[in-house]
C-alpha cells in the first residue's frame, strides 16, 4: 500500500506546497478518473454480465451482481422458475407457477407438485440466489449442453496463427519500407511516402470487392493466408516507423558502413534494434487489428468452419430467432485475455526502449 498510496496521492508543486490539494490537482484527478471510467466500465460490464446466469441476461437484469431466479427440476413437470409465496399468516412456501400468470395464479408447492391452488399474484416474489454462472464459460469450452459445434480450440488456433503471422510479416515489410523511405536518397522518395500515407484516406470497405478479386485470383481465398497477406502492408505502420527512423542519426549508419557492414546488416543490427519502441507500438496495433478483425475474415473464411477465427466463431450464438448472449459475453471475455497479455508484455519494450536508446 505504501508505494501505491504515495503514487495515488501525488500532488502538484514542490515538497513544501505538495501536501495541499489545489484546484489543478482536483481537475487532473477528475480528468484521469473520467478516462479510467470511459475505458474500464464497458470491459467490467462485459465481464460482470458474462458471469450472470442466462435468465438474468435475458431479463435485462441490470443489477451488478450475478443474481437470478432459481430454476429447479420439478418431478413430472420439468424445469420451472421458483417463486416464494407468503400467505396471510406469514408462512413462506417455495412454489412454481402451474398455469399462466393472472390476478389469481395457479401455483403448486415444490414439495408437492400435484397440490395446485390459486393464490394472489402480488403475494409471489421470485426466489433468487447469488450464483456465478460458470456454465457460460464451461459449456462452449467443454462442448456441453448442445455446444458441440463451437470448436473453441480450432478458433483460438486460427486466430493466433493469423495474428502472429500477419504481425510478423507486417513488422518485417513495413520496417524495410520505412528504412528505405527514411534513410536512402532517391528520386521520388517523398512522393512515395505521400502516396503510401494517402492510402490511409481510402476506407477498407471501398476496396473490399477488388481485394476479393485479387485474393481469389491468387488462389488464397478460403485459406488463412487470404486474411494474413492483404493485411500485411499498412500505411500507418510504414508512416509510424519511417518517422521514428528519421530520428536515428545518419552518422550511426555511416559508422556502420565504415565498419564494413552491408546494408542488410545495417538493417538488422542497427536499424531494427534502435527502432524497437516504434516496432512494439506497431506490433500492439497489428495484434489488436488482426485479432479483432471481423469483416474481411468473414468474407474470406465463412465457407469453411474449420478456418473460423474466434470472432467468426462468436457469430454462431447470434441466430435469427435466438441470441445466446450469455455465451457471447463469456467467449468475448475469453477472447480478450490473449490480447491483454500481449499488450502487457509488449508495453514493457516501449518504455525500456525509450530509456535505453541513450542518444542525446
Amino acid at each position, binding site marked *: 500500500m505504501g508505494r501505491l498510496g504515495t503514487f495515488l496521492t501525488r500532488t502538484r508543486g514542490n515538497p513544501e506546497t505538495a501536501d495541499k490539494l489545489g484546484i489543478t490537482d482536483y481537475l487532473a484527478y477528475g480528468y484521469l478518473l473520467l478516462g479510467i471510467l470511459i475505458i474500464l466500465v464497458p470491459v467490467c460490464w462485459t465481464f460482470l454480465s458474462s458471469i450472470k446466469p442466462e435468465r438474468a441476461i435475458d431479463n435485462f437484469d441490470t443489477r451488478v451482481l450475478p443474481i437470478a431466479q432459481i430454476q429447479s427440476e420439478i418431478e413430472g413437470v420439468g424445469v420451472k422458475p421458483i417463486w416464494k409465496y407468503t400467505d396471510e399468516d406469514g408462512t413462506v412456501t417455495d412454489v412454481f407457477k402451474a398455469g399462466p400468470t393472472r390476478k389469481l395464479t395457479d401455483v403448486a408447492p415444490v414439495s408437492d407438485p400435484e397440490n395446485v391452488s390459486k393464490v394472489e399474484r402480488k403475494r409471489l416474489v421470485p426466489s433468487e440466489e447469488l450464483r456465478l454462472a460458470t456454465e457460460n464459460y464451461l459449456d462452449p469450452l467443454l462442448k456441453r449442453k448442445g455446444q458441440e459445434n463451437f470448436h473453441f480450440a480450432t478458433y483460438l488456433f486460427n486466430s493466433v496463427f493469423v495474428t502472429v503471422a500477419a504481425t510478423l510479416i507486417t513488422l518485417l515489410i513495413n520496417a524495410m519500407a520505412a528504412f528505405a523511405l527514411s534513410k536512402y536518397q532517391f528520386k521520388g522518395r517523398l512522393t512515395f511516402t505521400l502516396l503510401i500515407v494517402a492510402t490511409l484516406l481510402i476506407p477498407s470497405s471501398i476496396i473490399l470487392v477488388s481485394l476479393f478479386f485479387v485474393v481469389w485470383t491468387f488462389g488464397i481465398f478460403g485459406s488463412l493466408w487470404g486474411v494474413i497477406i492483404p493485411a500485411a502492408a499498412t500505411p500507418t505502420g510504414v508512416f509510424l516507423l519511417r518517422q521514428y527512423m528519421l530520428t536515428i*542519426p545518419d*552518422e*550511426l549508419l*555511416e*559508422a*556502420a*558502413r*565504415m*565498419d*564494413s*557492414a*552491408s546494408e542488410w*546488416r545495417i538493417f538488422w*543490427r*542497427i536499424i531494427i*534494434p*534502435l527502432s524497437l519502441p516504434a516496432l512494439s507500438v506497431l506490433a500492439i496495433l497489428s495484434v489488436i487489428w488482426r485479432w479483432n478483425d471481423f469483416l474481411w475474415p468473414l468474407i474470406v473464411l465463412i465457407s469453411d468452419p474449420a478456418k473460423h477465427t474466434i470472432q467468426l466463431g462468436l457469430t454462431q450464438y447470434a441466430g435469427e430467432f435466438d441470441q445466446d448472449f450469455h455465451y457471447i459475453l463469456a467467449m468475448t471475455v475469453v477472447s480478450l485475455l490473449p490480447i491483454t497479455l500481449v499488450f502487457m508484455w509488449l508495453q514493457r519494450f516501449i518504455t525500456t526502449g525509450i530509456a*535505453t*536508446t*541513450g*542518444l542525446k
Partner: protein
Amino acid sequence: MSDVPYTLELKDIKKSFGDVDVIHGIDLAIEEGKFVVFVGPSGCGKSTLLRLIAGLDDPSSGGIFLKGNRVNEVPASERGLSMVFQSYALYPHMSVRANLSFGLENIRMPREQIKRRVDDAAKLLQIDQLLERRPGQLSGGQRQRVAIGRAIVREPVIFLFDEPLSNLDAELRLQMRVEISNLHATLGNTMIYVTHDQIEAMTMADRIVVLRGGNIEQVGKPLDLYNNPANKFVAGFIGAPQMNFMAGSLNGQTLILDNGITREVPVSEPGNGSAVTLGIRPEAIEVSLKGEGDEQIKVQNFEQLGSVTYIYGTFNNGESLTVQLAQQIPLQRGQMIGVTLRTNDFHIFGGEEEISLPMDR
C-alpha cells in the same frame, strides 16, 4: 598500378551539392605513415573532403587513389579505412565490446582473433574496465576513447578523424591531443585529421593542409607554414595570437606603412607603388617603455600571464597591434609605449591574391 609510395592521392577532386560547388579541384598526395591535418575555417570543405576519402560521399569529378588503385567506385564498407566521427556515433544499443567487435564481425574474422584485438585496443586506450558497459553510461572522454578504439581494431590503411575533440572540454581536449599523437607514434598508420583549431593542427601534424573555400591554400610542415606562409590567409590562420597586419605600399625596396613607419626591405622584385600588407608576428616586436622605437602605440589592454605578456595597442591611425613579450613589464592602460619591428621577421603580401612576396635573406 602506379609505383608512387603514396598511401592516398587525390587528383583534381571536385564536389558540388546541387548548384553549390564545395570543392574546386583539389590535388593532394599523402605519404605512408604521416599525420596529416586538414585545417580551415568552417565551410572550407575539409569535412566534405574527408567524407569523399572515406567513401561516404562521391566526388563530382576527379580520382581518389588508395595505394595507387582508383577507389572512386569502391563503397565505404570495402575501402578498408576507419573513421572517428565528431559525434562519436557509437551504437547505443551495444556494449562497448560489441561496438569494438562489430566491424571485425562484419569481415568474418575468427572469434578468438576478434577477442584478442578488442582486448589489445582496450588496453591501449585504457578502456578495458568499460567493455561491458553501454555508451550511454560513459563520460565524454570515455566515449571518445571507444570511438578511437573502434577505429583501431580494424587496423585500417588510413585513420580518418572528423573534428573528434570538439565535443570535449578544454582540459580533456589537451589530454586527448597528446594521446592521439602518442597513438600515431605507436601504430605508425597514416592518419588524416580534420579540425578548425589551428593549435590542434600545429601540435599534432606532420603535414598541415590549409583549406579555404574549397581550395588548398598551402601544404607543409607546421613550422614551415608558421615561418613561411604562402599568403596572407595562411599567415593569419596559423599562429596564436594572430599575426599583425598593417596596410601600406611598396616603392622599389621602400615599404611605406599607413601608420607612419618607413623601412627598406630586401624584396626580390622591387615594387611600383602598389598596395601591400605587412605581416609581423606578435613575438617579433620589441617594446620600449620610454617610448623609443619606430613608432609609438597606445596600450588599450594587456594580459600578464607570468611567463608571457600580451599587449594590445593601437597606432595613431587606428590600426591595432598585438605584442607578445616573454617577460613581465609594468604597464598601464592608455600609456604610450615605443615599438620596434624586426625587419628580418617581415612578411609582405601583395597582389590580388595577397601572396607572400619573396625576399632576399
